[in-house]
């Protein structure tokens, strides 16, 4: 797969939400096996970390991922949204987590912006971040590889579905705008401006009257 091509995230997130837990578990386990196979130093470096379980919480998915590091075998499993027992937790949206994993965004920058939350053993999280950033990972490539000879077809299909989904989303948004025009506030604003103009005109007239009266009184005194 073209490394620069974006992962069809909306499709991925939608699929990950509706698929049965067992299927998601099987895919994530296969994904990890693929990553460790294509990046042999990744396994070595993950094993060198302090032994720990890290929960990766995608804020827009109904479950968590649990990764064990610091001992063989390294595992990646799907656990319940409210699962406990982690030594550390990392939370962000799916899109942010994928960008992090594929090296498109800096984790410290996310932390400064408060778009990434960490809790528990900070050393483990820092170590995991550094070990992953050492590799040039591509989830899209790994997912395509999982599909074997049908990988290319799956990629094209995924992209087509993403385009269709984007297009449908845009049409729905347009329909929503038609049914719920955002003009209410603007109309109120226009009315307010008109009222202001009328008040200014009235005040100007009043001022003119007062000015004339003052002038007449001044002439009378003179």
């Amino acid at each position, binding site marked *: 797969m073209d490394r620069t091509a974006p992962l069809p995230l909306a499709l991925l997130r939608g699929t990950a939400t509706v698929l049965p837990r067992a299927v998601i578990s099987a895919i994530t386990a296969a994904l990890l096996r693929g990553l460790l196979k294509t990046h042999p130093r990744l396994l070595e*470096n993950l094993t*060198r*970390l*302090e032994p720990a379980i890290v929960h990766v919480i995608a804020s827009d998915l109904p479950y968590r991922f649990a990764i064990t590091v610091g001992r063989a075998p390294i595992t990646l499993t799907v656990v319940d949204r409210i699962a406990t027992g982690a030594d550390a937790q990392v939370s962000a949206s799916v899109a942010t987590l994928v960008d*992090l994993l594929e*090296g*498109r*965004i*800096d*984790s*410290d*920058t996310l*932390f*400064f*912006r*408060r778009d990434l*939350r*960490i*809790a*528990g053993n*900070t*050393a*483990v*999280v*820092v*170590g*995991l*971040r*550094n*070990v992953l*950033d*050492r*590799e*040039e990972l591509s989830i899209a490539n790994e997912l395509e590889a999982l599909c074997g000879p049908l990988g290319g077809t799956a990629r094209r299909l995924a992209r087509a579905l993403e385009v269709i989904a984007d297009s449908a989303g845009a049409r729905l948004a347009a329909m929503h705008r038609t049914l719920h025009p955002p003009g209410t506030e603007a109309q109120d604003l226009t009315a307010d401006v008109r009222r202001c103009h009328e008040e200014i005109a009235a005040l100007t007239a009043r001022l003119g009257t007062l000015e004339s009266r003052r002038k007449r009184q001044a002439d009378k005194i003179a």
Partner: protein
Amino acid sequence: MSIRYLELVCPAGTPSALRTAVEAGADTVYCGFRDCTNARNYPGLNFDFDELCAGVTYAHARDCKVLVAINTFPRAGDESPWHRAVDHAAAAGVDAVILADLGVLDYATRCHPNLRRHLSVQASAANAPSIQFYRDHFDVRRVVLPRVLSVEAVAELIAETGIETEVFAFGSVGPMSEGRCYLSSYLTGLSPTSEGACAPASHVAYEEIDGRVLSRLGGVTLNCFARGEPAAYPTPCKGRYVTHGQASYLFEEPVGLNAIEILPQLKGAGVTALKIEGRQRSRAYVAEVVTTFRRALDALERCDEGTPTGQLHGNTEGGKETCGAYQKGWR
């Protein structure tokens, strides 16, 4: 290597960051070994000997230099990791080592006389007699200046010492006396100057309460960020402390150093090299910052009007930037 304008010295915390920096236009990259001999000794970071050798080959093939920071201070009676690091750097064919400790400088001078030596900012050499001492006794060829000098002071030092200088262009403001700061040791029991990690991750903890984030180091709360407020590193110098009933930044506010607006002044001062800080940052940071500075330096070389300055404030602590001491308006 041809110095296109000011030499751009870029961070490489990992082999992938090294490749990223080279591809983004670094003239030079700097890195460290996976141990206490460098001041970025964080888990999962840095190079082993084989990775360094591969990195040197990769960089040299693309006309880029490699420096190795061996810039912490040996523990009494345990100098061997530092000596081994110097030996390995020399064996890997690096272009220079960045040293701070007198003993390590002496070892490198005696055992590897042809290995170019730079003085780390950790040595905190900020005046002419100090720099001349290192230059004359250890043939130090370049000094990395602490971030406490104005552009005028930098120019005076260069004129007085005649030595190559490297100054920080992007990263932390760093007003502390570098290499001599023990605030972190006080809270953690670990020395940043000999263990290689200020605010070591093993002693850092975050807790979120009702949208506010508390950062702690060694059990001491250093800061509390309100919902939506930009966060900062959990270092004692950037802690928000309560005095007279009011919380404020006593030492340093979470603001990043960005000298991209004053590159002409730094060039005019006679600076040789610009250092981008951030070996502990991801390669995405390296790509963005190095690319931006490369464009700015190339534009400056062409004497283009309106040097591109990019939008780097998103990468800085607190989302804010300053020229720091270079343009200091305080006494």
